[in-house]
């Protein structure tokens, strides 16, 4: 384990910012903290970097305790590289001097060699003499990355690294940066609110909400096997449909009975609570769980449609009035109001105990 956070918490005055946060990252892995703004993800990053103290738990880097309540190894002693949202390049230094800023105790020849090497890695060879303000946003981002990687840090932290770039560049650069990190064998943590960025770049993703990590998992599991309603809602699209749990691997909903191991909060541990509830649950249905099939006897009415090029995302109204989403190849072009045939194709059954709202 390169990095371990054990029950880390932090609070300002009475306000809790981080709450009993634990996760670990292996050498060479890229982790990601994903969550809406204000969920505390940047605070976690800054606590790992050593810019923020913690008020509970501990942070262990390379087997050495670096943060605990009332104790903090200062940022400059941690060998943790950081790429800031605004890049924070030094405007008075040229690109080469920016990249070489953190290289201490090297002869100028060695230093120049390392700088040249890194500029090549990030695709900026020959731009060493330029000043930051002469570069585009994407180029500044690369300089910031090269500067952070130059002293071979234990760990690289990136705070919303692509948020200042336009969408197209963002996608291209995120894949490129992943390649660079993997090639350098760097361990990194990225903070973002953009799930596509998180999916594209990281090996492990922690979904954060209200200062807690809801689930620390691979992208595939976050999408298909979310452990909480928040994760189910925040990652990907989908709806929750009421259903009844028949037994540990059967759930009945209005579109039929789903078979298979039930995960989510209604997996084996959550089951007791559910059966006390008379088995009433809500089942997560992703747009790819609902297949359009003209031959199917199950019908739903088109309420909205969003053309997306290769496919159309239909919002369908079931006879009961509930709505589901369906992703359909775009040559199946149906008009709003039309009734179309659908069938279920659910590989992972995800169910949560029904929360009875106070009014009904």
């Amino acid at each position: 384990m390169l990095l371990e956070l054990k029950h880390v918490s932090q609070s300002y005055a009475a306000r809790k910012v981080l709450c009993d946060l634990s996760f670990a990252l292996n050498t060479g892995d890229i982790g990601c903290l994903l969550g809406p703004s204000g969920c505390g993800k940047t605070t976690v990053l800054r606590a790992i970097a050593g810019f923020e103290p913690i008020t509970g738990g501990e942070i262990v880097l390379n087997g050495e305790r670096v943060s605990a309540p009332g104790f903090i190894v200062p940022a400059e002693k941690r060998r943790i590289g950081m790429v800031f949202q605004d890049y924070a390049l030094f405007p008075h230094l040229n690109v080469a001097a920016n990249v070489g800023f953190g290289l201490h105790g090297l002869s100028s020849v060695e230093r120049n060699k390392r700088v040249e090497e890194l500029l090549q890695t990030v695709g900026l060879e020959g731009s060493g003499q330029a000043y930051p303000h002469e570069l585009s946003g994407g180029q500044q981002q690369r300089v910031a990355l090269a500067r952070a990687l130059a002293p071979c840090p234990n760990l690289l932290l990136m705070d919303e690294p692509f948020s200042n770039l336009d969408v197209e560049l963002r996608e291209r650069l995120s894949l490129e940066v992943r390649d660079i990190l993997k090639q350098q064998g760097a361990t990194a943590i990225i903070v973002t609110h953009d799930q596509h960025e998180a999916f594209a770049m990281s090996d492990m993703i922690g979904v954060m909400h209200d200062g807690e990590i809801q689930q620390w998992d691979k992208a595939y599991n976050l999408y298909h096997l979310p452990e909480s309603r928040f994760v189910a809602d925040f990652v990907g699209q989908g709806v929750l449909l009421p259903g009844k749990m028949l037994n540990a691997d059967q759930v009945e909903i209005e579109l039929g009975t789903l078979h298979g191991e039930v995960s989510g909060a209604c997996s084996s541990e959550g089951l007791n609570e559910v059966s006390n509830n008379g088995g009433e649950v809500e089942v997560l249905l992703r747009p790819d769980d609902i297949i359009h099939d003209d031959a199917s006897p199950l019908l739903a009415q088109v309420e909205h449609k969003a053309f997306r090029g290769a496919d159309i995302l239909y919002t369908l109204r079931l006879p009961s009035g509930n709505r589901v989403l369906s992703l359909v190849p775009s040559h199946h072009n149906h008009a709003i109001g039309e009734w179309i045939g659908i069938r279920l194709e659910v590989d992972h059954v995800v169910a949560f105990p029904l929360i009875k709202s106070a009014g009904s």
Partner: protein
Amino acid sequence: MQRLPVYSAKAPRTGAFTFKFRLPSAWVLAALLIAMLTLVPVVVVLSSLLTPEREIWAHLVEYQLPQLLTNTFWLVLGVGLGVAIIGVPLAWLTAVCEFPGRKQFSWALLLPLAIPAYVTAFVAIGLLDFTGPVQTLAREWWGPIEFPSIRSRGGVIAVMTLALYPYVYLIARNAFLTQGKHALEVAQSLGLSPTVGFFRVALPMARPWIVGGVMLALMETLADFGTVAVFNYDTFTTAIYKAWFSLFSLQAASQLASLLIVFVLVVLLAEQQTRKRMHYTQTGKHSVQARIQLTGARAWLASGFCLIVLALGFIIPVTQLLLWASEVVEQDLDARYLDFFWHSLALAAIAALLVGAVALLLSYSARQHPGFLLRITARIATIGYALPGAVLAVGIFIPIAWLDNRLVAVGWVQSPLLQGSLVVMLLAYLIRFLAVAHSPIESQMQRITRSVDEAARSLGVSGINLIARVHIPMLSGSLLTAAALVFVDVMKEMPITLMTRPFGWDTLAVRVFEMTAAGEWNRAALPAVALVLAGLVPVLLLTKYRSK
């Protein structure tokens, strides 16, 4: 590994009332000390308002106050209206319209800032007085005619307006530029003509800036000593000077100063109030958009207006100065001028270093301890720009003289040590010009984001190295600007230098004062040319920044 005591305050509080006393850091103490230094003369002068000396008051009320109050009232009103009436249209024309020469005028109209108002004053008198070239020529051509006297209330107001309108021009222009043409275009799309749009949209939007600029001009008006002295137009500053140096009554001087400071504080409060509103009304970035094209007579009117103001405020005075100076340069420029130059340069350089360093300290401590305390401390420490030099001279001399007497009384020194030294003068410069140095440094400091510091730290650079490798280089431009601004301001400064200089420390400004007091305009022109040359430096700095 080390413990960081800074963070201990954030540890969870266990008891209901855990009161922790932390010693304030050196940064906080330094900033508080600077603010106290600024407050001392204010408090000293104000306290003499609370302890009025019956006899002196009776004398003042009977013989001086009515005249001083009337003079000050008309001066403030006249200059306030004057700078707005000249400054705002010029700002509008050069910011939003297009006409022949607009680009050149937009920077040239700042040039009058380079001439100290007292220089414009003696040039105006020299030119327009009964014996001056203008009236003499007119009499030759048309025979005896009556001219209104330049040595009048109108004359002072006109001269001050020409010297101070750039404050309003500069700030209002900035406002018109930042509000962009969008606002006007919206007005047009809603059916308002550009002229109506100006009065209903652009002008109200720019009002906080315009008021701010006028307030700055009024502070200068209240602080002015040289101009009113040349015109023999008695205001509080000249009365303070006379009370101290002709009547040798420091008490009368401080009583007068206490009244003046009340007016100044009122203006200061108004100005700080408008500053707050500037944040609200700021709408857009610098937008480069099509200007309103003026054609035909309107274009020539615009050019003509700019040219007249520029001619009256800069071209004619400078030409006249050069003519006079060339008349006397051979006989007058002797060894004494080496002394005047040397004293001016030495004082300005020492003050620039001192004030620059203190401003840096103030700004850096606010960076180290962000929060209300240091924000308000910096605010207080920099109110000196509003305090008239004559008031500062009195407000610093009194406590220093007291300190001197204490030192003599306890037998530490034989004779008064501080009051005859440079200390009083430098302290007064420091307080008066701290804001001048602080504002460029502070604005640059704020542009160094926290993440720049953190980036350096994550790369293993902290403490002194961080300051030397990141902060100082990033601030170097503003440090130079700050030093240059203070340097020039001190060179031009008249009342503080006049009232607190040690024996023999005559400077160029003092020379101007002495020559104008004797009515020898051409001999005053020689040192004045040097001051104008120095004064061009900050104007060039300003235009450089604006073109960025």
